[in-house]
């Protein structure tokens, strides 16, 4: 397997323009003859499906929810970055590029990140034109807020529902194309395999989640926009249905999987309350603009927070990182929380929580200003915890939130399987080893609105594709494999529920491959996961039939894939013998406990190639060069 990044030459600020000019175009009459399959209807999927249809391609779009509007992008709260410099505070494309490369701890591809920063400005324009109701100043201009890892105010937002509003914009554009007959939308359809013909992606196999029918879909190219795989940890801020099945099936068909161990733990989530917990809820990072994070100085101090005087509180982020304070990047904030809790200074039941306190901000700005900024988040917090954050500090703790890893793609966002493009969180993306807040929405929309519509055209224009139909042997083989797997899951007739396996996998992952990792722990996880997988296939209990809406069956298929993917995540974490961004190996830290990168040996992307059942996957590397942003030890002090 060869990893060719296909980055255009020339100075970084000219690469994308030059490439756009050099790419081949498909003539408008010919676009109508091409069918493109887009799997996913989140920000990345919906924006690309709509844009490709606007260009004239026939698009088939798929999602597992009952409507494309429900993709998990809907849950993003805080905002989206763009280098507009509307605040005149010194922002620029270069600064956004710089912040993103640095925030990612120098493990991303410079050229991609630069393009992302360039396109960020077009995204805001596009979304405004669609009617996204971004927050405004009294004069009618767009408002901004600050987010972690940046010292400028470049985040655009729509109350605490930015993802929802951006997604509805893309969804409306998508539905417009559905109405025009250019997009054939298949909701409640789950992609269960990728079909590769003569080395090129030519289609997918889906299961209709209502009837159980296994169906082939043929196209000239496939775009995967299926989101992240963080549910491998079971408890996460993801939607319950979020899964790795689409990218995992593609991996097994030959797409390299890059940096699977780069997973992000978000510092501000509502702590776990008990065994029944099914998911964790994020409290937007924007809260760190006004909230102050602290724990008691003394271990085991169980006094209610108002009774702890200021001098007995440890505002540990402000103390350790005076220049960024509560706005340090997520990985830094999460590890700091873990550290104080491990020291026995955590708060709330179980001791795994820290305070996020708005008392000072309320005193300074008044309750109504705070309410206007964060009202819906405060309400959400109160609904879940029955505590009023206007009166008592919130309790928060880190939780799995995002996956920087994903299918490897080149500059054109094409995977190692020609014709298979991967966009949004599903690719290994532009965020290196740590994503900055408000940058995922930006990336999903940049990929979908402005990158893939061009690069996919270039692929089609420069490739001669033979006609294939659903009766092609490759389709028949994939369909048979999908049907056999469904039958196998239904045929185990074991004793344990699917959820119980998923929970157990999640515990292994969180304990050994969560916020802090070490060789011993990873090796033990690599021993436990295959055993659990073996037990799953021997003892899982999936009731019902295929020919109906069968939610246990859906979950079982997803968990079966997580049980394989989890192992790859741990293997990648084991092999990356350095700490960087969200990947913290305890063996590699500075004396004051910060991540210690090893640029000599690990300034690269690790991309794993599937080598067949029972064989260890092969690790390939794509070296990373830094011409514009010179790697230094990240400092937010």
């Amino acid at each position, binding site marked *: 397997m060869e990893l060719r990044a296909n980055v255009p030459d020339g100075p970084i600020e000219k690469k994308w323009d030059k490439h756009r000019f050099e790419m081949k175009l498909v003539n408008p009459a010919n676009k109508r003859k091409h069918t493109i399959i887009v799997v996913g209807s989140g920000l990345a999927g919906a*924006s690309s499906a*709509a*844009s490709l249809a*606007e260009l004239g391609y026939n698009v088939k779009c798929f999602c597992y*929810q009952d*409507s494309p*509007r429900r993709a*998990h992008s*809907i*849950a993003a709260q805080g905002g989206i970055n763009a280098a507009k410099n*509307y605040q005149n505070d010194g922002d620029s494309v270069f600064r956004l590029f710089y912040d993103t490369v640095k925030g990612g701890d120098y493990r991303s591809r410079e050229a991609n990140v630069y393009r992302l920063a360039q396109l960020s400005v*077009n995204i*805001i*324009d*596009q*979304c*405004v*034109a*669609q*009617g996204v*109701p*971004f*927050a*405004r100043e009294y*004069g*009618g*201009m*767009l408002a901004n807020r600050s987010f972690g890892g940046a010292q400028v105010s470049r985040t655009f937002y*729509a*109350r605490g529902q930015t993802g*929802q509003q951006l997604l*509805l914009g893309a*969804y*409306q*554009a998508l*539905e*417009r194309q*559905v109405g025009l007959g250019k997009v054939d939308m298949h909701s409640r359809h789950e992609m269960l395999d990728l079909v590769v013909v003569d080395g090129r992606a030519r289609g997918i196999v889906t299961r209709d989640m209502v009837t159980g029918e296994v169906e082939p879909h043929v196209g000239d190219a496939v775009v995967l926009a299926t989101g992240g795989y963080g549910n491998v940890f079971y408890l996460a801020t993801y*939607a*319950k*249905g979020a899964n790795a099945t689409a990218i995992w099936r593609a991996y097994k068909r030959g797409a390299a999987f890059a940096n699977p161990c780069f997973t992000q733990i978000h510092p501000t989530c509502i702590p776990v*309350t*008990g065994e*029944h917990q*099914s998911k964790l809820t994020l409290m937007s990072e924007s809260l760190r603009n006004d909230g102050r994070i602290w724990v008691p100085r003394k271990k085991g101090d169980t006094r209610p927070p108002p009774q702890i005087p200021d001098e007995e509180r440890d505002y540990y982020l402000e103390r350790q990182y005076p220049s960024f304070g509560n706005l340090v990047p997520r990985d830094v904030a999460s590890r700091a929380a873990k550290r104080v809790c491990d020291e026995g200074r955590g708060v709330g039941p179980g001791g795994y929580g820290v305070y996020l306190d708005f008392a000072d901000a309320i005193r300074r700005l008044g309750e109504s200003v705070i309410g206007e900024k964060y009202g819906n988040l405060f309400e*959400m917090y109160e*609904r*879940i915890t*029955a505590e009023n954050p206007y009166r008592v500090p919130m309790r928060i703790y880190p939780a799995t939130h995002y996956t920087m890893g994903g299918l490897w793609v080149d500059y054109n966002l094409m995977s190692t399987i020609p014709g298979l493009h991967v966009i949004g969180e599903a690719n290994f993306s532009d965020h290196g080893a740590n994503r900055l807040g408000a940058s995922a929405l930006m990336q999903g929309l940049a990929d979908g*609105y*402005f990158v893939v*519509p061009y690069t996919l055209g270039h692929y089609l224009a420069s490739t001669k594709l033979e006609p294939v139909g659903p009766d092609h042997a490759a389709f028949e083989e994939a369909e048979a494999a999908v049907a056999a797997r469904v039958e196998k899951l239904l045929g185990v007739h074991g004793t344990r*529920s699917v959820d*119980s396996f998923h929970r157990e996998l999640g515990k292994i992952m969180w304990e050994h491959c969560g916020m802090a990792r070490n060789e011993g722990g990873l090796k033990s996880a690599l021993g436990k996961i295959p055993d659990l997988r073996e037990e799953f296939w021997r003892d899982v209990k999936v*009731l*019902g039939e295929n020919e*109906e*809406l069968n*939610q*246990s069956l859906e979950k079982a298929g997803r968990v079966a894939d997580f049980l394989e993917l989890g192992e790859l995540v741990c293997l990648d974490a084991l092999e990356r013998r350095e700490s960087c961004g969200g990947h913290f190996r305890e063996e590699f830290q500075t004396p004051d406990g910060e991540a210690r990168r090893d640029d000599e040996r690990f300034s690269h992307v690790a991309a794993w190639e599937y080598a067949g059942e029972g064989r260890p996957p092969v690790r390939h590397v794509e070296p990373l060069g830094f011409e514009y942003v010179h790697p230094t030890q990240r400092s937010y002090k």
Partner: protein
Amino acid sequence: MNLRLHVWRQRNAADSGRFVTYPAADISPDMSFLEMLDVVNEGLIARGEDPIAFDHDCREGICGTCGMMIDGQAHGPRRATTACQLHMRTFHDGDEITIEPWRADSFPVVKDLVVDRTAFDRIVAAGGFITAPTGSAPDGNAIPVPKTSADLAMDAAACIGCGACVAACPNASAMLFTAAKVSHLGLLPQGQPERYARVRRMVSQMDAEGFGTCTNHFECEAACPKSISVRFIARLNRDYLRAVLTGGGEPARVEGGAG
């Protein structure tokens, strides 16, 4: 706490369906309503019985996937709260709880508590958008939007498309859903060019889907987990009336050019 649930079970659209009673034992007040159903389902699976099918995804009140009638109320007793965000501390030990799917002809039952809400997508496809193809946009600050309009548009845009308004309405009307989208887009300068065509098309699709008419019961606003105001319905009616009276939104006839 311990509860008794009366749950609507229906194998598929063709089945006539029935209530089945299940105990829910050892429920913690910190559980969400859906986590309580998870626990019941784990028990059913252990006994070899088909678990209760219900729709859900984000479990944080934003995706609009969950939805069920809980004791006759859409999303249950708590104001402005989706079923996934409803916590068991709202209930008491020994309570009997009746759980049903949304009941509306335009939302046929798929299985148990799961219904088909694709009619909403078709209403949006008919006109619930601003035509702004990718790449055609001017600078974001080129069109100033008064803060009051942006805020009001956002109030309307907060709709999560869950269908509670339809389920709560005695006529199964989709007016609040449609009005929220018409208002969101119609309040913004960008939405003006298509304002009247939009309202016509969306209303006509809404009718074609078989949703009932609005007779001002306002149960929709009370049931809406996002507290979308019925004032948006008045706004829709105004726009619709103007569109009909003035022929606004009808495509102008395209005359042949002179060359």
